[in-house]
């Protein structure tokens, strides 16, 4: 551990999942019993901060009573030529990861919700000052994020100072969120692609835009920007957005080009804001899937943890199977939960006005982002467990899709035919036995014929057509 030779305990990713139980803890910082606590990253100008400086305001770890809980504020101030405020969130979230690398040091949650415990064993080994914690953070920030040229870290345990800083931190978070949510795809000239999942799904590429999170829900446009600038050759890369080819569907020249290149031509065209024709593809770890329900001309959405069958009788596992492996399948759309909070969520298909069913748990999570006039018109598993019940529910609530039922009948029919094909596979196939005598326009008369077959393989007609 030469990088951390002067730290009294080990530092490594292997400690990441470490939990410290109450009985084993020296002190608790933040956590559920402390009302005011925070961690905050701010980008400063180079002359505002001193590189490598660790400031402790209030009592240090060794001055805290064993077994006690204390408030804590962490302020990471960074400077660098290419840094801007948009990266503050990314920098801030690294605090969690880095702190957890410290042996016997547990960090949970983020922002105003942090919960830290230091284990007795590590304290006894000498980890008794924020100075050490600061050094670890400093070195990891500098070695992992070369775009940070200077970084200064402050730990605050003084209740008065925390009281003063806490509302400031809350304002920062709020402003950051508002800005992030307000950022529009049209306003940026770069998107980010991610091919991390190609290690398991070789023909899938995710495109991350300000208004479309990665399917796994783990990478925002800001994260993408940070990753791509830190490691330009890495699996998260910059995509020049290019010309807007279709603003409604969400088609961009640069995206088509990048996707074509990264999928070796498997996918040539991507429409972000629709589940039809050229939907964004999926690997397998999407958080939820939107699926078209032809009977009502609307979308159902189901998430991974939903147990049971959805309104069309199929469980998540079956629906998810319809969109995976980097394929574009009409009417199926793998996505993150966060995407449902975006204004562009299936916007080309009608957005929330086209969503007819989703699990209660998901509805609760994204409720604030569903337009107020539609939220009660969307059924959950409590309102409808089959298509008939769904139809009745939508009719009763006068969901916007009801208006489409007469207007757009052909679309529903077409999709209906597709569903039927699936069913066709189940039809008993004994009638196929007459096939052999249909050949070539001749009249074939078989008299007293005996036909023996060791094996007859019966395939549905659909297979033949396909192959």
């Amino acid at each position, binding site marked *: *551990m030469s990088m951390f030779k002067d730290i009294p305990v080990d530092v*490594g*990713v292997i400690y990441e999942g470490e939990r410290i139980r109450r009985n084993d803890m020296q002190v608790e910082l933040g956590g559920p019993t402390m009302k005011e606590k925070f961690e905050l990253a701010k980008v400063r100008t180079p002359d505002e901060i001193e590189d490598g400086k660790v400031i402790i305001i209030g009592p240090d770890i060794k001055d805290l009573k064993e077994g006690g809980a204390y408030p804590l504020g962490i302020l990471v101030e960074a400077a660098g030529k290419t840094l801007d405020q948009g990266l503050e969130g990314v920098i801030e979230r690294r605090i969690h990861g880095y702190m957890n690398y410290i042996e016997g040091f547990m960090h949970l949650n983020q922002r105003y919700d942090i919960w830290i415990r230091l284990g007795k064993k590590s304290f006894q080994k000498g980890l008794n000052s924020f100075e050490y914690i600061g050094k670890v953070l400093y070195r990891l920030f500098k070695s992992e994020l070369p775009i940070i040229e200077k970084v200064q870290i402050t730990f605050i345990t003084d209740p008065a100072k925390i009281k003063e800083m806490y509302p400031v931190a809350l304002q920062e978070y709020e402003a950051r969120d508002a800005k992030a949510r307000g950022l529009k795809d049209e306003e940026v000239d770069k998107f980010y692609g991610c091919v991390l999942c190609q290690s398991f799904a070789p023909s899938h590429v995710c495109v991350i835009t300000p208004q479309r999170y990665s399917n796994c829900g783990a990478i925002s446009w800001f994260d993408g920007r940070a990753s791509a600038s830190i490691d330009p050759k890495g699996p998260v890369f910059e995509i020049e957005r290019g010309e807007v080819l279709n603003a409604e569907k969400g088609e961009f020249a640069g995206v088509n080009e990048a996707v074509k290149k990264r999928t*070796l031509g498997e996918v040539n065209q991507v429409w972000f804001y629709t589940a039809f024709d050229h939907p964004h593809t999926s690997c397998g770890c999407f958080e939820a899937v939107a699926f078209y329900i032809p009977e009502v001309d609307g979308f159902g959405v189901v998430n991974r943890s939903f147990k049971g069958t959805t309104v069309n009788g199929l469980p998540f596992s079956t629906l998810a199977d319809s969109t995976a492996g980097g394929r574009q399948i009409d009417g199926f759309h793998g996505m993150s939960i966060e995407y449902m909070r975006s204004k562009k969520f299936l916007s080309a298909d009608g957005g929330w006005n086209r969503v007819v069913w989703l699990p209660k748990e998901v509805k609760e999570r994204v409720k604030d982002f569903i337009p107020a006039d539609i939220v009660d018109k969307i059924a959950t598993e409590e309102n409808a467990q089959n298509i008939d019940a769904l139809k009745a529910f939508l009719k009763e609530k006068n969901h916007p899709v009801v208006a489409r039922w007469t207007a757009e009948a052909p679309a529903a029919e077409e999709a209906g035919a597709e569903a039927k094909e699936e069913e066709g596979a189940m039809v008993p196939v004994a009638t196929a036995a007459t096939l052999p*005598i249909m050949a070539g326009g001749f009249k074939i008369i078989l008299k007293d014929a005996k036909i023996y077959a060791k094996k007859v393989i019966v395939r549905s007609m659909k297979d033949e057509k396909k192959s």
Partner: protein
Amino acid sequence: MTSKNVHMKIGEMKTSTGLVKNLELSIGKIVDDSWTEPMGPTPMPSISTLRDWDMKLLNKYKPFYMPDCDLCCLCTFGKCDLTAGKRGACGLDIAAQSSRIVLIAASIGAATHTAHARHMVDHLIEKYGRNFPLDVGGLNIKVEAPVTRLVTGIRPENLGDLDEVLEYCETQITHCLSAAHTGQEGSNLDFESKAFHAGRIDQVGMEVADIAQVSALDFPKADPEAPLIEMGIGTVDTSKPVIMCIGHNVVPSVGIIDYMKESKLDGKMEVVGLCCTAFDNTRYYDRAKIVGPISWQLRFVRGGFADVVVLDEQCIRTDIFNEAERVRAPVIAASEKNCMGFKNRTNDPADEIVADLVSGKATGVLILDPEKVGEVAVKVAKQIAPIRKKYRVLPTIEEIIALAKTCRQCNLCQRSCPQDLQIPAALKAAAEGNLAPLTDLYESCIGCGRCEEACPVKLQIHSYIVKAGEKFMIEETNFCRSGRGAVQDVEIRNVGSPIVLGEIPGILAVVGCSNYPKGGKDVYDICREFASRRYIVVTSGCSAMSAGSYKNSEGKTLYEEFPGGFEAGGVLNVGSCVANSHIAGAAIKVANIFAKRNLRGNYEEIADYIHNRLGAVGLAWGAYSQKAASIAAGFWSLGVPVLVGPHGSKYRRMLLGRADKPENWEVYDARTGDKVNVGPAPEHLFQTVETPQEAMVQIAKLCIRPNDTWKGRSIKLSHYIDLHKRHYGCMPQDLHLFVRTMADVPMTMKDEVTKILEAKGWKETVIPDPTLLPRMIRKKKE
């Protein structure tokens, strides 16, 4: 769904195309091929169909032979001396002979699981009908039989469909075994390839057995919260009549449990199990108890706990009858494969058999009707328990001290002990009144009883060890999670992102028997180490029991401490031996779920995917049986590395990669067609390790795969380096082989690793889309 022997007669039929008169149609088999997934290239492979794939692996991981015996004694030309390159009368050399034994072992293993499956399926069809639907996980599982789909191209929907799958397996095992006849196969690599084939078939046989029983007997269905089961001798209420079931096939136990419930005796008697039957009993009835692994047979019987001993099949001590007789416990043999010389009483009235067993007129019987087994076992236990009063044959401490004085210190016991336990010293101390050294042996003893066979003065050494360790024995009260069965599709989806991002560094399957070098604690320690490091730890069989037999500082067993889901830091017990198939099944499903690769009859492509992408390692720390050999073979052919403990060296060979030969580690980059050197990832396919520490370092290293993202690789390397430093006290010196770009280097170890890279002249390379199959190179579409 298939139908057999269909006949059709048409007197006269006019159609627009023709006239048919007296048409008689006879079809041997109608296959309903309504499954829309296209058939892959190798449905129902013969013994040579996948030879090319096997050879790819066998050239990468060349067999390294460690013959246990230099002679071949199989035919009457012999014995033939095969030392120093000599060939036998048939022409085989020692390499071919060793691999031939591997093939024989794998075939025996595959036959055993498949015959178990055959019995299970036939029995369940008789009871529930051919159309009884298969259900292994309800809505959470779409791919019900991944191994079967992959190997045979069949998608089984009901019990009847399994019949056809088994017919295929039976044919293949016959071919495999026939190749071992004198004067058949001559090349060691071809013997190996056929052993791989036996392994593939074995996985199918196991899967059939388990999905049949899970479906028809309503076992936990892919349930991460399968109930916690009481385990250990201390959990058995000895005031009640105790029925002890040994073996693997749950059918007779089901008869016992059903009869016990019908006669309202549940709660009034104990049904306990040893070895895999114990698991399947608990999957059927969660108040059944697990005594422990196979090696607990002697201690439980001699301790007098069992009032009736019921034997089904596999891994049963074949002298258990003599042992049971000593403690006056009647024995019921319940499997055709294991008649034990008893009189067949299947057709006799139950009460007659009961009377004979209770009175001692008969000490053992063969009953081949599981329901009758149930009735007889329950009635006998109830009637004989008050008579036997848990009669035992363990000596008193005073007796041990007296008998130990007769020990001649000849050392034969220690020499015959597979674990080299220091028995003579312990007996010497006992003779002087100090039983502590004898007590210490209790933990490490695997209960084989060879010490007693070797003793020239016939000391009952094993009984002394058990008596000296009695306190521990009685205090054995642990929990084991009941076998959950398959892994849900949804669970696999959930771990997709954390595996890609390295948050889950790998999957460790700790499976197999209990021939441990130093007791089961090693298994517990290894499982706990990797679960704490957020690997997914999968257990099965006797290893799953040992994993649950120890507690942490808070008094919690592994199954209480860690969640039972297929998730970071999860410890999941899939179940008995045949449930091992779900581990391979989970790996196979990954390819289907994330890459949407077709499974149907598509073995080579999926094995290539798993081998190059899925960081999974098998550990059979105490593997002893031929079944363990065939299970391992099934993993080898999927390209999944397997480690065995020291006794595994007696499987006669390892499959070792050569890290020093860069040319062995080239894969194609499917994106470009370029050959890329990906380093020894994974380094070996089958390796014997001597100590748990060595095992831990190897496990971490063998989870490395060519497709690792830099994040994944850096975390895998962190664990490898950390374990290496901990257990060898230094940095590993082969790191340059596993670093592709600087981003792979663990962030907290940059300085140290960079030094090694510089010293070794490391050069940056690319992360490919790895495959060993040229046909998988993708063509650019325009």
